[in-house]
């Protein structure tokens, strides 16, 4: 632990992106060369509503420092209603995490359309910055899951 | 809250309206009962704020010709509501002159039980924005 403390904090950040809007938005950020830190790794899901709160908790358990979920803007969901359900579920989950004392800001939901490469990049930059300010996730991590 | 750096920003903050939303339809000027009295017309107010020429606004006759009748606020299709901008410019002048204005919590002491409540409300609407 003490050796680690001297090392630069490199957060692990998982980004779930829906296939139709946000993943395409991330692609657009890429083709527009709009950078964001390499700490962010994207997992493609068909829709934001595919993201089970258990996936997010699992990421934290395994040592993620932040988890962000991106989907189509409300009303623009490819499956028409998926992000509405995701929105309620995530609100509930985030509220519960806040309630048990997990720092606010380790989780985030952002609606990013396929045309919003800039938004994707700024969102990711902001989010990484936020995680840097919060530091390592200790409250949700699970020792057994750490290497 | 972002830092308010220019007078134009101050006007935007006080009025809560965004001049960039204006589509220059002129409905405000078409609605204004004091139009002919004004040197800067209501629709021009928006572009003065946009162009950050607050000095001209503050020195204009219009500032004191506006009746606060709210016709432009009511009818503006873009929620720019020049009346609020005019009101905000007035606020700036009042503040620059160092005049006092009341805070809400100072009211109870000064109040006369005979004062109609409506007067207070309209005074607040006009002077405390």
């Amino acid at each position, binding site marked *: 632990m003490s050796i680690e403390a001297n090392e630069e904090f490199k957060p692990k950040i*998982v980004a779930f992106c829906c*296939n139709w809007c946000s993943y395409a938005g991330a692609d657009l950020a*890429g083709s527009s060369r709009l950078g964001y830190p390499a700490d962010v790794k994207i997992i493609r*899901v068909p829709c934001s509503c*595919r993201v089970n709160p258990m996936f997010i908790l699992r990421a934290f358990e395994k040592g993620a420092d932040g988890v962000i979920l991106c989907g189509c803007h409300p009303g623009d969901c490819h*499956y028409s209603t998926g992000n509405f359900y995701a929105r309620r579920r995530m609100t509930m989950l985030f509220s519960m995490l806040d309630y048990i004392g997990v720092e606010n800001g380790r989780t985030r939901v952002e609606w990013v359309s396929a045309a919003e490469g800039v938004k994707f990049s700024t969102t990711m930059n902001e989010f990484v910055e936020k995680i840097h300010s919060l530091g390592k996730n200790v409250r949700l991590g699970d020792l057994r899951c750490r290497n | 809250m972002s830092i308010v750096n220019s007078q134009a920003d101050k006007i935007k903050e006080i009025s809560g309206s965004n001049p960039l939303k204006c589509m220059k339809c002129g409905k405000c000027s078409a*609605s204004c009962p004091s*139009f002919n009295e004004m040197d800067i017309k209501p629709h021009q107010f928006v572009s003065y704020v946009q162009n950050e020429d607050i000095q001209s606004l503050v020195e204009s006759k219009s500032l004191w010709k506006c009746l606060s009748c709210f016709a432009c606020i009511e009818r503006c299709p873009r929620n720019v509501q020049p009346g609020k901008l005019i009101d905000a410019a007035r606020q700036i002048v009042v503040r620059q002159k160092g005049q006092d204005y009341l805070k809400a919590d100072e009211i109870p002491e000064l109040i006369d039980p005979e004062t109609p409540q409506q007067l207070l409300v309209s005074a607040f609407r006009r002077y405390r924005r």
Partner: protein
Amino acid sequence: MQRIGVFVCHCGSNIAATVDVKKVAEWALKEPGVVHAEDYPYMCSEAGQSKIQAAIKEKNLTGVVVCSCSPRMHETTFREAAERAGINPYMVEIANIREHCSWIHKDMEEATKKAVILMRAAVAKVNLNTPLKPGESRVTKRALVIGGGIAGIQTALDIAEAGYKVDIVEKTPSIGGRMSQLDKTFPTLDCSACILTPKMVEVNKHENVNIYTYSEVEKVSGFVGDFTVDIRKKARSVDMDKCTGCGVCQEKCPSKKTPSEFNRALNTRTAIYTPFAQAIPNVPVIDREACIKFKTGKCGICEKVCQAGAIKYDQEDEIITEKYGAIVVATGFDMIKLDNYDEYAYSQSKDVITSLELERIMNAAGPTKGHLERLSDGKAPKEMVFIQCVGSRCSDDRGKSYCSKICCMYTAKHAMLIRDKYPDVNVTVFYIDVRTPGKNFDEFYRRAVEDYGVNYIKGQVGKVIPQPDGKLLVRGVDLIDNKQILKEADMVVLAAAIEPNKDVRKIATMLTASIDTNNFLTEAHAKLRPVESPTAGIFLSGVCQGPKDIPETVSQAGAAAVKAIGLLAKDKLMTNPCTAKPDELMCNGCSQCANVCPYGAISYEVKEINDHGVRETRRVASVNSALCQGCGACTVTCPSGAMDLQGFSNRQILAEVDAICR
């Protein structure tokens, strides 16, 4: 255990300049299941694909990971390549190391590290992939068009001409729609009826077209290629087969006080009526709320005068159930209500009218027989004022945020027609912008100004004040002269915003077609798929998708028809295999998944389940894989996790999470 091959693409220098591709391939060999790894300058090229195919065969690969550009770019390419080499296409996953890595990072070490992690996640997923097989579903060779205006008529005609059966469902007693209410059309000034009526006749006569007027879509189930639709044929109270359309019933009907929908309530109609003379079908309906016979039981005059014996008071609504392969929505538009625009005195003065009302006034079959006159006193106006953008381009909730698109042109048309027919009438148009993109459109507007002397003033009107003498005082502004204007007018015409037909939300819900905040139906892609709904098998025609004029509507109607024909021409459809699948042993049968399914793909059946020898009859979910589009909403709603999504299973996604957080 899978045998996985990892293929790292240089994409020329697009990837290789920032990611050490050799290192990614090296690291790949250390991942569980990976038996082969190589890199190549262009994996998507013919040569690159052959490399993948060769490796599949030589190393007996069961799974493939390609580290390359976005899967949105070449996933299909690589899947097809793998399929040709004999493995299931769904055993291929892409690690996006270009858009999500090399293009956004500058530091080689950092980018390489990230590329390795992305590769690991993809390998972890492929380790859990299973071969998936697309299903097949059949296509019913019949199309449904909802709405019988010009958009619906054109779409139906085009589909019918291609040899497919089409049904039109129209809510009102006649087809024709808004266009039938118009007097003339811009920019050619053709008579609207003259160009529309032949189309109405043609569609009515067409052997492949079947028209249900006075009917509404009640229920839609099924999916692309195989929709089942319930159509409610409202009781007309007139036998369509017997009626000869002689019109005597309408002449004799004593109930004459119902506002005419067709004439925008500017005059009245009888209780038994056809909306207009050229109506198709030319068979009246009885408005039961207005009919004396229905209200009091007495009267029955129409029955007595009808020589054909067509009047059927006891007719009932009929539900017709029909199957369709494709559905085209062509529900059109209406004008917004002007109740919230008191400043224009619309509800205070009869002489303040909307443009559509003016169309009826100008029309020879309209309430004034085509004479331009004030509705208050019948006098001919001398001063007319047109106000543009009433409720369009509004950011408050009184109006609509969008531009209604057609008003600039029809106002120029109205102004021109009035100046032409009544040269002594002065016409003033208050505008914010004049928008005339379109062939011959700006020329048309300029003619109004230059040849017809229409007075265009830039500036909006603030208020219209009815005067005691019946005149209307218009207070506007001229922004160019910077002057306020007070003008006495005899008539004021408001270019009210248009909005989608109020029934469209109900219809969109039935079709699970997405709809925007303004109630316009959403297209699958704003640029590349403008006439398709994101919901497969649903196509969009006309103003239901966004404001349009007639030529645009007709061309979009044709485009929607072509898309529908393209679908109907297929015998079978391949379905997306990434669908939800319930584990019956775990399913509680609680219906929560069905509640969130946007496609109605989940149903329940009570059946015998054999749980390791224990037999039990209970309620379990089943997914119609032809309907399921694979969003996954159900999988998260399911409390027990019985529902899983193939291709994006819980374990696959968790494996990716684990690989990233490792």
